[in-house]
């Protein structure tokens, strides 16, 4: 296989060929190549199509700023769209395809859009596609959507994994070029804990692309030596292939480490790690990015940034062409000519827009000073350039340098604004960088390497000293001084030829002009109107150029024109990396109840409730529908005994001499005088008077209470109580701690519940109705001395208890209860049966305590004490909350008991209407919050809220569910459907 552009040398291993596929063609590169360098070695210049006009595009850069060479890499589920070939390390079997074209890359059918480009000027969308009205969504938009977009997602779940990590350092150094390495050395020598991160898979930055000598060594060798020195130090962490993508508050930085190599070798290993780096100080040494110049047809494959030409030449041993021209407005461009010449590549012309003396002589090259390139020819690869002096020069590559822009993005992540530097013709960081960040080297605008090294060296040591470390006394590395002079050149008059500014989004100098003409004068307006800088490169090569053009159009300064907002991420980050491990079942942690193992064995169906997995019902063999199981569980519990794991309810242990007073202030009802050994139901409000939570609280001894909360609100109620204690009444002697997990708690409900429990409660404890009446609570022992707590409380309306043991016995207790219960045909019941029974009893739960209902709305106005202050008292008295026509909770039962029986759904969610009213918002009287099929009543029943409901019992209305198409006449009734007098629970 031939790599016709490959020359000798470079920082690659030419002994190790690596084969890969591009657009179906098997090609070869070498170990150490990027995909881009390998393509260029094989003379593949045309690698993609632009976004809007599908213009042929070649590789423009050699870094993460690449706008053109973005492709789909990998196949099947591993396919990754929009991957920059310039930063993709070549590996064996790499499979790449160009994207955004229909038909072969060379003959993209969609390229016809380029012929219509006069029509498709900036902002054309907003002026057209409106006629006829319906056509936008039916015809135009689908067409636009299909031609837009870039690469294609595989539409398969990402097969790779990702991880997250946390690292701490004194000093984070971003960028391991000459400046960053110099800073790292002095910072590390001082003893500070240093992290040095670089986005490249090889450290050294541009030293690897240039021919500078440092301390007498080739720059790349000096870099290797320095990295080796750093890696030997315990206080230094080197992170290669790691892009610091964002600066966040208080010295937190986000960084993505690419571990593709490891993940390809072992599918279980994460592909990327999302590091959160906590820093005390940061030194940004991110270097600079070269920009282009806007001249006619400056977008052809073969036109590259001059620095990229050097990178391919020096680092990757690729001569991108055989007859190369250079077009520059600064000294740096000349280096390209020199390096090419030194490697024996034919340089045909050097064109410099500045009217100065030539920077150097390069044998064989024609030199044109004060001259511009005004046009180019060659559809799929450049063939010639036309100069402003009228000359045409045949060339197969044009290296362009419009000057360098500091990579100051991270300095602006806290909304800092860079300032214009006329001498350097670019924006440089202002003093508004994030707190703790300093900047060194070319990122700061220090363009001369020798100066940048000194700056890095000094800052590494100064920042360490600020943190209290001893300054290093070593000398900075030395390198010859090479001047950088520039004279801004933004766009060149190019007649009818389009001069491209944003290569990926196809924004031309004319588009910018048109936007300005139409009143879009703010740089943000221009961006939004033309899409300039909104492509995958976020305008890294385009934006400053565009600002220059805008400033010229509007005859204002660069400073007045300003930049758009710099936002994270510095380079695009895979969504999977941000998610880390959190996907599938690991999206949230899971909580298992003490009876989980046992329940799973009974084939229980589980439901997620606030991370807990609770048994929803326990199907028995032969039961084919969940309703059969639930109906059976309800009937069996009501006729004999059922057992339900209620461990998930929040349990808060309260100790202290002021606990009863504290409870009195957080519940609506009185708690000051609850006797020891008794439980009381309590309703808690938010300060705005709305119900927050409810539960029971038992007084186990004078200064010891245990409270229960709902499962869903366990955490927020505890937080609320801590607020009340710490912020409102800090001197109350109250000590609270969650004991939710300390005790496994089971409800044992049904007429046989006492009999069942008597078999395990140790005989010295009398739990007869007389000794242990409804709402009693006590500490007992079971099964021969195992400590337990027993509460005679009931959610089902049956004679019922809740028994709690240390969680270590939780699984065992469930098994014992079932074993003991065999003689009563005891059954386990799940949350569905629990829900049915509570609706039958008219107990409010989550759907009723939905944060929109007051104690009065819930029919608990009678509980509200008027004699004490408590949270929610005052605001609960507001006029609208006391109105008679508020939505009040009542029961609803169908007039025709058979309604909905065959529908498979309940009344829940239906809205309430008068019998002859139309379904309109004005006529809406309320809604059904909870509805179940009641096996005891033989029909659906519901709890719900209706205007003035508490005074409307007996009235008939309609429960209308337009969503599912039902309209049921229901009677407003008491919510206590079953055993309204509560006789069953007191026996």
């Amino acid at each position, binding site marked *: 296989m031939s790599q016709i552009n490959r020359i000798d040398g470079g920082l690659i291993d030419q002994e190790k060929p690596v084969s890969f596929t591009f657009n179906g063609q098997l090609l070869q590169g070498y170990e150490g190549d990027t995909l881009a360098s390998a393509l260029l070695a094989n003379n593949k210049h045309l690698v993609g199509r632009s976004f809007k006009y599908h213009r042929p595009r070649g590789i423009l850069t050699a870094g993460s700023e690449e706008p053109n060479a973005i492709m789909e890499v990998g196949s099947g589920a591993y396919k990754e769209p929009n991957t920059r070939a310039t930063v993709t390390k070549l590996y064996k079997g790499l499979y790449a395809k160009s994207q955004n074209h229909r038909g072969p890359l060379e003959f993209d059918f969609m390229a016809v859009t380029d012929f219509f480009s006069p029509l498709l000027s900036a902002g054309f969308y907003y002026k057209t596609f409106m006629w006829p009205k319906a056509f936008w969504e039916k015809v135009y938009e689908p067409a636009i959507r299909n031609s837009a977009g870039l690469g294609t997602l595989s539409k398969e779940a990402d097969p790779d994994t990702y991880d997250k990590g946390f690292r701490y350092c004194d000093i984070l150094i971003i960028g391991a070029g000459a400046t960053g390495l110099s800073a790292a050395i002095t910072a590390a020598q001082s003893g500070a804990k240093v992290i040095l991160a670089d986005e490249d898979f090889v450290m050294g930055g541009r030293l690897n692309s240039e021919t500078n000598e440092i301390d007498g060594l080739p720059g790349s060798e000096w870099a290797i030596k320095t990295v080796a020195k750093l890696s030997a130090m315990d206080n230094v962490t080197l992170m290669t292939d790691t892009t610091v993508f964002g600066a966040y508050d208080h010295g937190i930085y986000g960084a993505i480490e690419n571990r593709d190599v490891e993940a390809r070798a072992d599918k279980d290993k994460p592909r990327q790690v999302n590091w959160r780096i906590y820093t005390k100080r940061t030194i940004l040494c991110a270097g600079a990015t070269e920009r282009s110049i806007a001249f006619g047809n400056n977008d052809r494959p073969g036109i590259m940034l001059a620095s990229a030409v050097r990178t391919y030449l020096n680092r990757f041993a690729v001569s991108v062409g055989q007859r190369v021209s250079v077009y520059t407005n600064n000294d740096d461009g000349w280096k390209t000519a020199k390096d090419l010449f030194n490697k024996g590549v034919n340089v045909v012309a050097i064109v410099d827009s500045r009217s100065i003396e030539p920077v150097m002589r390069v044998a064989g090259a024609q030199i044109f000073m004060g001259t511009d390139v005004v046009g180019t020819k060659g559809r799929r690869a450049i063939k010639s350039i036309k100069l402003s002096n009228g000359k045409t020069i045949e060339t197969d590559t044009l290296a362009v340098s419009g000057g360098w822009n500091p990579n100051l993005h991270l300095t602006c992540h806290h909304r800092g604004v860079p300032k214009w530097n006329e001498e350097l013709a670019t924006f440089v960081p202002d003093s508004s960088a994030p707190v703790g960040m300093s900047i060194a080297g070319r990122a700061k605008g220090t363009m001369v390497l020798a100066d940048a090294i000194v700056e890095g060296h000094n800052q590494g040591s100064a920042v360490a000293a600020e943190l209290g470390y001893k300054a290093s006394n070593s000398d900075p590395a030395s390198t010859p001084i090479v001047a950088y002079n520039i004279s801004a050149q933004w766009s060149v008059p190019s007649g009818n030829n389009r001069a491209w500014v944003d290569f990926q989004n196809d924004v031309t100098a004319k588009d910018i002009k048109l936007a300005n003409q139409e009143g879009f004068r703010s740089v943000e307006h221009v961006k939004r109107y033309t899409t300039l800088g909104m492509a995958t490169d976020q305008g890294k090569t385009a934006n400053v150029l565009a600002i220059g053009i805008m400033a010229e159009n509007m005859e204002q300064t660069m400073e007045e024109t300003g930049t758009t907002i710099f936002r994270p991420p510095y380079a695009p980050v895979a969504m999977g990396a941000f998610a880390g491990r959190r996907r599938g079942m690991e999206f*949230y942690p899971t909580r298992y109840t003490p009876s989980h193992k046992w329940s799973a064995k009974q084939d229980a169906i589980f439901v997620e409730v606030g991370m807990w997995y609770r048994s929803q019902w326990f199907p028995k063999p032969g039961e084919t529908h969940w309703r059969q199981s639930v109906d059976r569980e309800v009937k069996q519990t009501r006729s004999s005994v059922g057992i339900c794991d209620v461990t998930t309810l929040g349990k808060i242990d309260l100790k202290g001499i002021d606990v009863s007073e504290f409870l009195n202030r957080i519940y609506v009802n009185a708690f000051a005088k609850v006797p020891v050994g008794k439980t009381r139901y309590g309703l808690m409000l938010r300060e*705005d008077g709305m119900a927050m939570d409810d539960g029971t609280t038992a007084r186990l001894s004078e200064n010891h209470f245990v409270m229960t909360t709902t499962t869903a609100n366990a955490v927020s109620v505890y937080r609320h109580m801590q607020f009340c204690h710490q912020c409102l009444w800090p001197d109350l002697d109250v000590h609270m701690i969650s004991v939710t997990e300390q005790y496994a708690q089971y409800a044992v409900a049904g007429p046989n519940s006492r009999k069942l429990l008597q078999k395990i409660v140790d005989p010295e404890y009398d739990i007869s109705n007389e000794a242990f009446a409804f709402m009693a609570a006590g500490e007992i022992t079971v099964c021969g001395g195992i400590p337990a707590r027993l509460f005679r409380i009931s959610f089902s309306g049956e004679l019922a208890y809740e028994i709690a043991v240390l969680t270590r016995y939780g699984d065992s207790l469930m098994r014992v209860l079932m074993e003991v219960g065999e003689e009563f045909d005891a059954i386990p019941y799940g949350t569905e049966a629990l829900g049915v029974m509570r609706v039958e009893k008219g107990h409010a739960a989550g*759907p009723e305590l939905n*944060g929109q209902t007051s104690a009065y709305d819930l029919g608990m106005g009678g509980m509200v004490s008027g004699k004490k202050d408590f949270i929610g008292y005052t605001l609960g008295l507001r006029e609208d909350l006391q109105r008679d026509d508020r939505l009040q909770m009542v029961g609803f039962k169908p007039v025709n008991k058979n309604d909905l029986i065959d529908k498979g759904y309940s009344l829940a969610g239906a809205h309430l209407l008068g019998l002859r009213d139309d379904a309109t918002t004005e006529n809406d009287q309320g809604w059904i919050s909870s509805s179940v099929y009641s096996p005891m009543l033989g029909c659906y029943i519901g709890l719900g809220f209706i205007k003035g409901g508490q005074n409307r019992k007996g009235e008939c209305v309609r429960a209308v569910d337009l969503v599912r198409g039902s309209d049921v006449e229901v009677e407003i009734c008491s919510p206590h459907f079953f055993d309204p007098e509560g006789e069953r629970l007191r026996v």
Partner: protein
Amino acid sequence: MSNTRYSAFKVLKEALTGHKGWEPVWRDAEPKADGYDVIIVGGGGHGLATAYYLAKNHGITNVAVLERGWIGSGNVGRNTTIIRSNYLLPGNEPFYELSMQLWENLEQDLNYNAMVSQRGIMNLIHNDAQRDAFIRRGNAMLFADAGAEYLEAKDVKERYPFLDMDNARFPIKGALAQPRGGTVRHDAVAWGYARGASDLGVDIIQNCEVTGFNIENGVCLGVKTAKGDIKANRVGVCVAGSSGRVMAKVGIKLPIESHVLQAFVTEGLKPVMDNVITFGAGHFYCSQSDKGGLVFGGDIDAYNTYAQRGNLPVVEDVCSGGMAIMPIVGRARLLRMWGGIVDMSMDGSPFIDSTEIEELFFNGGWCYGGFKATPASGYCYAHLLATDESHEVATAYRLDRFRRGAMIDEKGVGAQPNLH
């Protein structure tokens, strides 16, 4: 004064003549010495829409819109572009439905293509309790003629085979869809209203920060600005996230806190989804723009702030929500994340009201949902400014509602703005 009407003919003509005939989309005006009938403070979507409807519906054209920076630089320029009218409570639903109807006719009304795209919005349901709540909501929507559709799990899967239906932490049991919901090209809304208002005579004044109000005897007589004092018979403040700062200049404290809402977009991708998908349980919602980027977001950043930028925890939470529900996005790269300052009210619902200062009006408290409300907010605010009466769909949006106990708390989380 009037701008050229956009037409197919005009577009073609300009294409052939080098686009030399396009005029500014709106006039950049300077303040008039003799003042205005109405000054709107804030050149965002709501302010521009208000000016447009004042002129169009009420014939009040001596109007200025004052914008601190460039028009559309607030939340209308940095949202996730979603429109919907799928609200629950009677105080809200008819208002948002009016907004939806205005969206549906926006382009013809403005002669400006804001790319209103009713591609549908879908809220995923994961358990029975959620289903009940969404059925309640769906019925509220149908009662208001907003349209709603319940989808079984199999229907959801058919539309989006790539959703993680069964293996996810939150298996998908169905969805509530509003087919009329969708997206709009957000910036174009500001430009379209600006153009429409400007054509009707409204002055749009950029780079004109309001630094104070001229109040005499409890009556607002105009504003102080970076460009000098400007007289007005009536002033309407409409500054979203800056509400607190602006109203503080007249000593009015509000039931509002400013918070940051982050939003995200990926690199451009060929079409994968045409709906808006909302995964409430995972704090994630997503649509795909016409350019191909997946545009998504989640919860607000919890703390009060005026800095238009967020922090990492929400970024990671939102992306994990995406991965949890549609693991095909793992290799889609997040291109840009940004933050907008949202005016979170104490019950999650907005205000369109007069204030204790005569001739000074207030519009705000839009929380993270102001974009979809833009047309109706402008429509109803213009109605109030022109007639002194609340529009019938905005009667609940009063500043004194907390004093009365008439909260419009869609989520039922109470007086904690960051939970709404």
